[in-house]
């Protein structure tokens, strides 16, 4: 269905909770509920958007304001309207998980985790725990005939342990858990977390004696926890159609080899391997039925993620990737569940095959670029020497041209790690998930 005028309305409620406990002190204990109604109208080649909160404002009034805004844009001159592609969708997709955790239960669990860490690891300098969840409920109606009720829910828990190194300087390691649903759906009980915290504490002890990474190009094994970040930052952003239209180098590379043939990368809409993913999008905030966008197939760049408008500009189909973060945001092209698909190798074999290099285990954040040059921070990593793990290394950064790094991939593990704990930033924040297997490649590490 292609039309040159278009209208959508969205009723959007966003509920969040966040608790931060530092050394047993509940520094933050906050809940927010944000609701609103928005309308976006496309007329004569321009967009108008309006939103409001508060009771009693009719939707028609918001639509009228958005229409007036679109018409007001005519002050910039006449423009040919695009025929916006994309089908319509009718459906309701609401996640129903376990019973929610009460605030009292959540606070008691944080206090229990802190007390356990203090008792078990007397040498700790500090502990920090964050627990929170976030729930978006959206009801989208469009002039294309879409009527969609959808919910996105995610819960997360961060555990940070801090000690002092030999010089008395603080050293920290963190573990992040995340899941679909609310804090009652995430298993962050002491019983579940104890083995992970024990492991984290061992890494902390190793990091107290960490050595600096040697800066430069190295063979690195990226644990599965990192592959999702690589997928998201390195090639995910440059495959967003608005960035392609903005001049990202990927625009000229469709059909060309951009990665090793071992690499297949997909932005998954809602289902992977027969199971619903963490951030399921059945129809986006333009009411477009969402489908998987296969960005790289066996190393070949195949397609981009698109909204109705960017699809029209590129002359391709819309993938259902237009999403808005809060009730006052207009939909932008955003990733959903971006993953590199698993291969056939075993992580231990991948490490054993490295004579000199690094095992990168945990990341903190990352950034993308239109050139595909990416970076992300590494908060836990070890040297590999003669196929065996050596010293922990201090915090560093991995970077490189995504195309060069992905072309150098020579092993892909057969397991997969998913997470949905972070925010993607691009004018608006966005909840996304990312996943992948362990990868072995050549990449640039920061260091002395």
């Amino acid at each position, binding site marked *: 269905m292609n039309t040159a005028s278009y209208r959508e309305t969205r009723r959007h409620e966003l509920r969040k909770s966040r608790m*931060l406990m530092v*050394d*047993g*002190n*509940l*520094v933050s*204990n*906050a*809940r*927010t*509920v*944000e*609701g609103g109604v928005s309308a976006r109208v496309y007329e004569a080649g*321009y967009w*108008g*958007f*309006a*939103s409001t*909160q*508060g*009771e009693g404002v009719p939707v028609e009034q918001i639509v009228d304001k*958005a229409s007036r*805004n679109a018409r*007001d*844009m005519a*002050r*910039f001159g006449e423009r040919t309207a695009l025929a916006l592609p994309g089908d319509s969708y009718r459906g309701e997709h609401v996640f129903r998980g376990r019973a929610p955790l009460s*605030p009292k239960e959540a*606070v008691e669990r944080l206090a229990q985790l802190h007390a356990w860490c203090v008792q078990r690891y007397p040498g700790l*300098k*500090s502990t920090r725990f964050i627990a929170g969840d976030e729930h978006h409920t959206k009801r989208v109606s469009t002039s294309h005939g879409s009527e969609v009720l959808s919910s996105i829910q995610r819960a997360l828990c961060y555990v940070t342990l801090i000690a002092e*190194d030999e010089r008395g*300087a*603080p*050293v*920290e390691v963190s573990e992040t858990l995340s899941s679909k649903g609310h804090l009652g759906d995430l298993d962050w009980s002491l019983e579940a977390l104890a083995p992970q915290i024990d492991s984290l504490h061992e890494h902390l002890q190793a990091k107290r004696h960490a050595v600096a990474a040697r*800066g*430069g190009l190295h063979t690195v094994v990226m644990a599965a926890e990192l592959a999702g970040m690589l997928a998201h930052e390195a090639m995910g952003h440059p495959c967003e159609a*608005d960035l392609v*239209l*903005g*001049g*990202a180098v990927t625009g000229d590379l469709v059909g060309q080899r951009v990665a090793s043939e071992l690499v297949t990368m997909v932005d998954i809409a809602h289902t992977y391997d027969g199971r619903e993913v963490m951030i399921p999008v059945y129809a986006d905030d333009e009411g477009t039925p969402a489908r998987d966008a296969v960005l790289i197939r066996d190393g070949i760049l195949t397609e981009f993620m698109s909204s109705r408008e960017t699809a029209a500009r590129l002359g391709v189909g819309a993938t259902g990737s237009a999403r808005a973060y809060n009730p*006052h945001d*207009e939909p932008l092209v955003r990733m959903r569940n971006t993953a590199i698909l698993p291969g056939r190798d075993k992580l231990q074999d991948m490490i054993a095959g490295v004579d000199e290099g690094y095992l990168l285990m945990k990341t903190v954040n990352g950034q993308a*670029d*239109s*050139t595909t*040059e990416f970076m992300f*921070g590494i*908060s836990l990593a070890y040297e590999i020497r003669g196929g065996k793990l050596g010293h922990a290394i*201090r*915090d*560093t*950064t991995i*970077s*490189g041209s995504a195309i060069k790094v992905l072309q150098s991939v020579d092993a892909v593990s057969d397991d997969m790690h998913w997470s949905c704990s972070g925010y993607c930033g691009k004018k608006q924040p966005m909840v996304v998930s990312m996943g992948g297997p362990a990868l072995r490649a050549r990449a640039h590490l*920061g*260091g*002395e």
Partner: protein
Amino acid sequence: MSDLNLQEVAQHALSLMRVQGFDAAQVVASRVAQEELNIAHNEPSLLRSTESQRLSLVGLVDARKASTELTDFGAAPLRDAIAALFTDARSAPQDEANAVSGGQQARIVQGPQASDPALLADKVRELLAFRQRETPRMMIDEGFASHTLARSHTVTSSGTELSCSLGFHSMSVFGTARDGKASSSFNYTGGACNDLAERASSEWFGIADMLRDTEQQIHTRPVGGKFVGEVVLTPMAVSDLLSWLQGQIGDVQLIAGSSLYRDRVGQAIASPLLSLRSRFDAPGVAALSADAFVAPPVEVLREGVLMTLTPSLYGSRKTGLRHVPTAADGWEIAAGEASRAQLVSAVARGALVGRLSMGMPASNGDFSGVIKNSFVIDGGVVGPALSETMISGNMAQMLRDVVGVSRERLDTGALLLPWLRVSGLHFS
């Protein structure tokens, strides 16, 4: 914007919280109206009008604390939110450091109080015309000119009453430059001001420089080799250094005992060339803290000496350190005596760093990052743009290793920062 009486809303919520049984409470009623004219791919694309409102409630009972925010001011949602908040607070651990502000009084009316859609359109036209005329290889992927009016009324059970009506204009530009199949890294700049009409669009927030520099960053080369060199940080990169310092002197690091500066007030922690103070009256900034205090001017660094830490009321009561209210933003580093050109000419080997793309620095300040939108400096002369170049060092050491501060500064409203020359960075 509707004539919602925020004072009445806030006082009503406070009275309901008293009835609920809170020992102490803080209420902020706020409403924000924004008009934003957007650019997409070098063309005007969308006019966005939003109105949002929020009630932020903090409640204390038996020295236990919780907070909540809601956007529906109706009687039933408010009653339910206060009841839930009471339950949340009673579930929280007892902490004698919990408290609310008392006796603070202020009425702030600042900046343009009304939107002028014609002015926003003129500024977008100017910007697009400049791009087409001066930097035609530049693609403005996203950009906007906007007006925001943020009104709020804050009351506490201890007699604080703060009223604020903060208007400001913003502009933002994000994009890349392209030449055939070659593309630059993305680049961006933006900021807030009171009188958008005062200057041409390109003269705000370093927009012209950013667009011109990005056109010079299409063709790049790696720095080549590993060495220890110097950098000249642009204000955008300086802001990363500033953020790290602010984290070190704020609540979380102070409470956790992991701040490097917890016991360093009165001592030199930075180069004597560095002085840092607040500008809480800057465009887009209100001189009020999040915990409902008037934020008077504060001096953080005087010629390298740490003058104060910045714990909130809670952080202060938790650590025993002096409470220093700070606004959400608004900082300036004092101008130096050298010109930007002089800073560059003093660098034997290094880089002019437009932006640091890096992970969170480690607790001890160690960092490594990719330098983006950057140029090589060789023998005091700026050369080609760089790609795939990393620097590593330590934030605390960088503060000490500042060897030059420019007399020129970039004003983005929230920040007024010079260019800094810093020695001792590892390039790879």
